[in-house]
């Protein structure tokens, strides 16, 4: 298409695509994976691609340096950046580990002064960085922070105050220092461009007056997710200003006077014809839930993971939600609630069931294998499941796999580490064996329960499309990890904790790790020497060990994080991180 080789074996100039046209064409390609492929075709395509790229996705902020990115892609408007290893969400990574966004912002302020969007996940973000972002990038529009930490609501003040063209402020589940809700009042009267506002995870009360005025003047607002402090009648007022919303996160769904009339709120949703996503619903009770029924018919995503609903309450609600594709629940709904899911939501593609009280070990129920089976019977299109339970059987999972062969993401968490099939007392090997054998499209797998090396043998043999694997308290020997490293060709992320995998296992992946984004191993059987060997053999990997205390040469390596990089060893590693 681009060039033709003539009979003399030389490129013919005349048939070459003009760069501008090529760039135009390539500009239509969004997926960063496709773009990576494009850039490998030839030098012209590499150049056209890099000039036409507007969005760069960096899955591991240490795999590349800001300078390298800036040098390669001169015209970036949007950056997605991910930092810490995923297990940092569960307190396995000490604070001050790194992933500071500031070096990136500093580089971007010169390279991309017209940067418009920044999406950060598991990055360390300070208030100073947020202020820097707000003041140095004049056209800045969209900020999304997920699972980040290190900042406070003061940083949000800076964003609200200075970003005159802000379209998106999306604050989710961060380790944020909530100093109060004043930040919201910092949006100037002149700001009318907001399209997405999500402050659901913030605790402090904002000024309702400021919020109402903001919502009223931002006519393009389509996503609004408020926090728990917003009451039902306040929500009603807000909705009257923005019936065009497509995504809504409510505040508390309970009034103090339970005997108050529901009729007041009956019409709250009647004008919201475009609503496809609903979340929030804190404290929702059967008394007020019916208020949302008018909006349910068009919903495709319902997030009830903050609402402690019981099975009957859920069943009543779901009978109105026939078009749901994604559903998030708390396990308070029980197996009976899941039966209702199976019978009401035939189009369901994603189900997440979170434990209401995960750390309270006396609560011995929630949902079981039978709830999962019920859903699988009624929802054959399921492709994404995250399921926390306290008991499971191999037979149930086999049934589920048969019912739903299209799983792409299967994350099963049996909350008791190393728990066997509670009926047969056998390991859960056959369960995951069934999944990987039947669900050939599987990309992501999280395993749990009592598992021997046999599970990993199955995974290595059958899970040919697997990209992400999470393992905890599983396996019997090095063989387990070796099976996976040998068999899973497309593996990109492997995270392991508390498994008996040792040096042989680690080193069996010597040639594989460069084709992966990262490997995490904690509380396994790996020693420092093995890590040193790996680091020496593979200079293009960063082999980082997190040490709790000083040990001898061949002491245990408690937390090992290995990732490929073109940026060399980290220069900002804290003292407890040793790069070998």
């Amino acid at each position, binding site marked *: 298409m681009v060039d033709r080789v003539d009979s003399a074996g030389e490129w013919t100039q005349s048939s070459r695509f003009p760069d501008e046209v090529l760039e135009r064409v390539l500009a239509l390609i969004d997926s960063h994976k496709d773009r990576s492929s494009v850039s490998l075709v030839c030098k012209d395509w590499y150049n056209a691609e890099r000039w036409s790229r507007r969005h760069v996705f960096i899955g591991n902020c240490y795999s590349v340096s800001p300078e390298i990115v800036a040098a390669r892609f001169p015209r970036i408007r949007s950056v997605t950046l991910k930092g810490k290893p995923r297990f940092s969400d569960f307190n396995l990574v000490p604070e001050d580990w790194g992933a500071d966004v500031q070096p990136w912002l500093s580089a971007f302020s010169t390279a991309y002064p017209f940067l418009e969007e920044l999406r950060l996940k598991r990055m360390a973000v300070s208030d100073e960085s947020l202020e820097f972002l707000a003041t140095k990038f004049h056209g800045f529009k969209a900020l999304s922070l997920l699972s980040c930490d290190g900042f406070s609501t003061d940083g949000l003040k800076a964003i609200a105050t200075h970003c005159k063209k802000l379209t998106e402020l999306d604050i989710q589940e961060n380790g944020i220092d909530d100093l109060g809700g004043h930040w919201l009042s910092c949006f100037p009267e002149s700001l009318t461009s907001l399209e997405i506002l999500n402050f659901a995870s913030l605790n402090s009360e904002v000024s309702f007056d400021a919020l109402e005025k903001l919502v009223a003047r931002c006519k393009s607002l389509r996503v609004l997710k408020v926090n728990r402090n917003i009451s039902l009648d306040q929500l009603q007022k807000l909705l009257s200003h923005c019936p065009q919303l497509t995504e809504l996160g409510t505040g508390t769904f309970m009034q103090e006077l339970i005997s108050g009339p529901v009729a007041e709120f009956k019409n709250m949703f009647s004008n919201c014809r475009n609503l496809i996503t609903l979340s929030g619903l804190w404290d929702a009770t059967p008394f007020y839930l019916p208020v949302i029924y008018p909006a349910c018919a068009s919903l495709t995503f319902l997030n009830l993971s903050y609402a402690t609903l019981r*099975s009957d309450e859920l069943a009543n609600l779901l009978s109105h939600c026939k078009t749901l594709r994604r559903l998030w629940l708390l396990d308070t709904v029980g197996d009976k609630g899941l039966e209702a899911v199976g019978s009401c939501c035939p189009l369901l593609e994603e189900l997440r069931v979170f434990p209401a009280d995960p750390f309270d*070990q006396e609560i011995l129920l929630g949902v079981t294998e039978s709830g999962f089976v019920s859903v699988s019977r009624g929802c054959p299109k399921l492709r994404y499941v995250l399921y926390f339970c*306290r008991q499971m059987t191999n037979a149930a999972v086999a049934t589920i796999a048969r019912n739903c062969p299209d799983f792409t993401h299967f994350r099963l968490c049996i*909350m008791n580490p190393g728990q066997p099939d509670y009926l047969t007392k056998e390991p859960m090997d056959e369960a995951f064996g069934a999944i990987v054998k039947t669900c050939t499209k599987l990309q992501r797998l999280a395993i749990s329960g009592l598992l021997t090396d046999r599970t990993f043998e199955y995974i290595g043999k059958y899970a040919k499309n697997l990209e992400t694997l999470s393992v905890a308290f599983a396996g019997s020997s090095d063989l387990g990890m070796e099976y996976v490293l040998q068999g899973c060709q497309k593996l990109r992320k492997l995270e392991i904790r*508390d498994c008996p995998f040792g040096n042989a296992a680690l080193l069996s992946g010597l040639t594989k790790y460069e084709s992966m984004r990262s490997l995490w191993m904690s509380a396994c059987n790996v020693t420092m020497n093995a890590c040193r060997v790996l680091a020496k053999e593979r200079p293009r990997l960063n082999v980082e060990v997190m040490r709790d205390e000083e040990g001898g040469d061949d002491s245990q390596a408690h937390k090992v994080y290995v990732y490929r990089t073109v940026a060399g060893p980290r220069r900002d590693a804290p003292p407890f991180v040793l790069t070998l």
Partner: protein
Amino acid sequence: MSPPLLDVEGDGQGNVSLMTSASSMESIFQKNAGLTERNYLGLSDCSSVDSSAVSGISDVKRNNLNLKATELRLGLPGSQSPERDPDADLASSESLDEKPLFPLLPSKDGICSGSQKIFVSGNKRGFSDTIDEGKWMFGSSGTDSDTSNVNVKISPGAQPAMIKDATSKVAPQEKTHATFGTNLNKVNASNPPAAKAQVVGWPPVRSFRKNILATNSKTNDEVDGKPGPGALFVKVSMDGAPYLRKVDLRSYTTYQQLSSALEKMFSCFTLGQCGSQGAPGRESLSESKLRDLLHGSEYVLTYEDKDGDWMLVGDVPWDMFIGSCKRLKIMKGSDAIGLAPRAMEKSKNRN
């Protein structure tokens, strides 16, 4: 009064249990078989001082570990059970996630409402035991032969000691254990039975999801069970209910309000019924029937106070009640036999 024999919930007494061999347990049972109201804990004149000291330690530990120790005090009256060193054990358990191999593996049972029973009989004398429920696993079930320090069994196994008539029920216990064995997870042979301590970062739930169950007022960050100017959340459990709820005691000012709220909250649960696998019973009971039952003789509202004693709700002034109430339980009237006399005795002792 004496500290609780069994603190399955771990909401205060994080003491390490001492699992002795089955035979010595049984002999002790026999000795104590006839005792009903007596403190057979061995910490003989176990005063409130003792128990509060115990509570003190474990409160600290609770935050660290939430160790649900089944505290099996098997000493004869006058003797102190050894292994009362929660610090060492809990502290070492805390760092277990750093150990490379096989971290804590609780011997967990997969039963549900049976656990509610655990709680009940865990609490001492005066209760007709709930052994009949069949969720009990005697120490001789085979998993307790190890004497690891932090051998904590959440499963009812540790509890039978507390129960009067224990010996007479030993045999049926074994049978019922077998019957309900399917509901109990045996300890994985390749993993050492370990304390059911909190493992860092497990289950893999992000911290913002931790406290969703609490109903909350707008301005308070709810704090689990700690008294303070803000909300005061206590857990409410009910025989036969598949999971606990939490209430904020400070949102009520009278017993009547609390009682009404609880009625509403638990009206959906069939009282006292639970399937063998812990599936919720039929939710067929109306509110009014529940109220009748609550006010009738079938169910009573009880609470565990700071000393770990179980008292009937309503005996003391409201303010005193919320100051000392740590958790609530709606239990069968038959299980609450003996509570009232003790409550009166206790308030006499206090006054």
